[in-house]
């Protein structure tokens, strides 16, 4: 791979140990994937934040990187393993909490904003069309490539951190025009009117289009909430983190010859495949990916004057929660007994103690991780279905 003089000096350690380690990572990845050079990036999203996943060794490594590592790009952080402020109410072990807080502090020392969200594009990390970025968190990678028209591969935690500390990423894969061409057309004949339906569509695309770049044709006009549900689901179920929505998102003019048709029965089938819950539910989880201000406001309206029978969480980003608090939206949601949690989500917070419980959610991605990783039973439906289940304690 071709390196500039400045990049070579970073690799030689002229800017410190962390930048040197970061360049070693980027050069190795560039060589593996045949990149010609490094491309400058001004926006990075870093994953690898839950102490649950990183352990003591990961924490020590990040603290060693934070000694002299400083970011050279706007950099935000993925969700942590707990609400960083209200972890006691969440029932988190103090030993876990202490290490989780140290982990986030190490990232913050490097200049990374502790946004702790999977939706950086909702809280100020918003690249423009055509911009090269280095993002981890697969749902955000899908949103960046497909909705925003930015360019990023699916980074892991350390490779994204390496990009942040150098302001560069290897130029291969989705950074290149040649890999941003639609390979299969997906004609959607089904109605799409909820986050759950768009999530179900993501599963159908992931399963049937595989890793091919899809061009979606639909009359529907998705909201931001529906687009993030779709992107999260496509990559969860094995699809490419790049797809195009004809007439809506930035797309090249070429048209693939291969075609897939999606009917209402396909979406119903996908929802049924993800649903194995008992009639009586135990837990309701919303906000996967993290809820926007608009979604929180809508939820407050749905819960107005009602009381939840079952434990109900909605996860969001701290900055979104702060705005919603000022507007009285958080108070309105919490009057019902539901809780607004920030900095974390039910995919990364430890849920082992709830094995076998039934969870209701509007997120296809959340449903997949709840049943696989956390061994929960699931009902997947609209936000209204989930609110009704929270209030009555039963699914429909």
């Amino acid at each position: 791979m071709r390196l500039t003089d400045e990049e070579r000096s970073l690799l030689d350690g002229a800017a410190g140990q962390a930048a040197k380690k970061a360049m070693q990572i980027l050069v190795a990845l560039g060589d593996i994937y045949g990149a010609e050079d490094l491309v400058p990036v001004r926006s990075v999203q870093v994953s690898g934040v839950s102490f649950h996943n990183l352990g003591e060794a990961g924490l020590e490594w990040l603290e060693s990187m934070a000694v002299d590592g400083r970011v050279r790009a706007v950099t935000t952080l993925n969700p942590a393993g707990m609400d960083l402020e209200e972890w006691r109410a969440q029932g988190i072990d103090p030993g876990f909490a202490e290490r989780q807080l140290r982990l986030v502090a190490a990232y913050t020392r490097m200049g990374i904003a502790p946004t702790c969200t999977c939706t950086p594009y909702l809280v100020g990390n918003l690249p423009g069309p055509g911009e090269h970025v280095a993002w981890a968190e697969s749902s955000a990678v899908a949103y960046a490539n497909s909705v925003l028209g930015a360019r990023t591969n699916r980074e892991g935690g350390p490779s994204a951190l390496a990009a942040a500390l150098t302001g560069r990423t290897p130029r291969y894969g989705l950074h290149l025009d040649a890999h941003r061409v639609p390979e299969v057309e997906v004609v959607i004949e089904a109605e799409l009117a909820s986050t759950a339906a768009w999530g179900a569509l993501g599963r159908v695309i992931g399963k049937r289009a595989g890793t091919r770049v899809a061009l979606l044709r639909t009359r529907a006009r998705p909201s931001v909430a529906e687009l993030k549900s779709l992107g999260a689901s496509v990559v969860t179920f094995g699809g490419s983190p790049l797809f195009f929505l004809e007439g809506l998102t930035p797309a090249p003019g070429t048209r693939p010859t291969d075609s897939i048709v999606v009917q209402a029965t396909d979406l119903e089938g996908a929802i049924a495949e993800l649903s194995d819950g008992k009639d009586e539910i135990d837990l309701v989880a919303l906000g996967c990916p993290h809820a926007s201000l608009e979604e929180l406001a809508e939820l407050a309206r749905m819960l107005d004057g009602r009381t939840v029978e079952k434990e109900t969480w909605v996860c969001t980003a701290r900055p979104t929660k702060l705005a919603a608090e000022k507007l009285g939206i958080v108070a309105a949601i919490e009057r019902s007994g539901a809780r607004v949690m920030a900095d974390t989500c039910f995919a990364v917070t430890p849920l082992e103690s709830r094995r076998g419980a039934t969870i209701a959610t509007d997120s296809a991605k959340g449903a997949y991780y709840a049943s696989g990783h956390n061994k929960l039973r699931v009902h997947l439906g609209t936000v209204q279905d989930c609110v009704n289940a929270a209030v009555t304690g039963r699914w429909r």
Partner: protein
Amino acid sequence: MTTLTGRIIHAGEASGVALVSTAPISFFGGLDLETGVVVEKGHPLEGECVTGRVLVFPRGTGSTVGSFALLRLTRTQRGPAALVMESCDTTVAVGAIISEIPCVDRIHLPAITPGARITVRGAEVHLEGIGS
């Protein structure tokens, strides 16, 4: 002694007895991080311990958290001595670099006999034969 030459992913020198897998390895979920034993059901190396071995395998698979899993193994002295691969991927490459484990890829794996003593030095993989 036979010498195979591959591509350096992380440069270093280490020796150990070859533990050869025909299947990809998922370091996060596939291994018990306390013991270094492969726990993935039905994996060709199920029940084997990677500690101190030269781990020979086609490529990594599974979650990108696998990079940190390799680091956790190494910091508790439970990690492999070196990694010899057919085709390295992001998760294992990053794991080798942050853990400082010697790692080489583009090696023709059938040339390596399980149980052979191996020294990895830079891009070279030296096979010393079983028991020598």
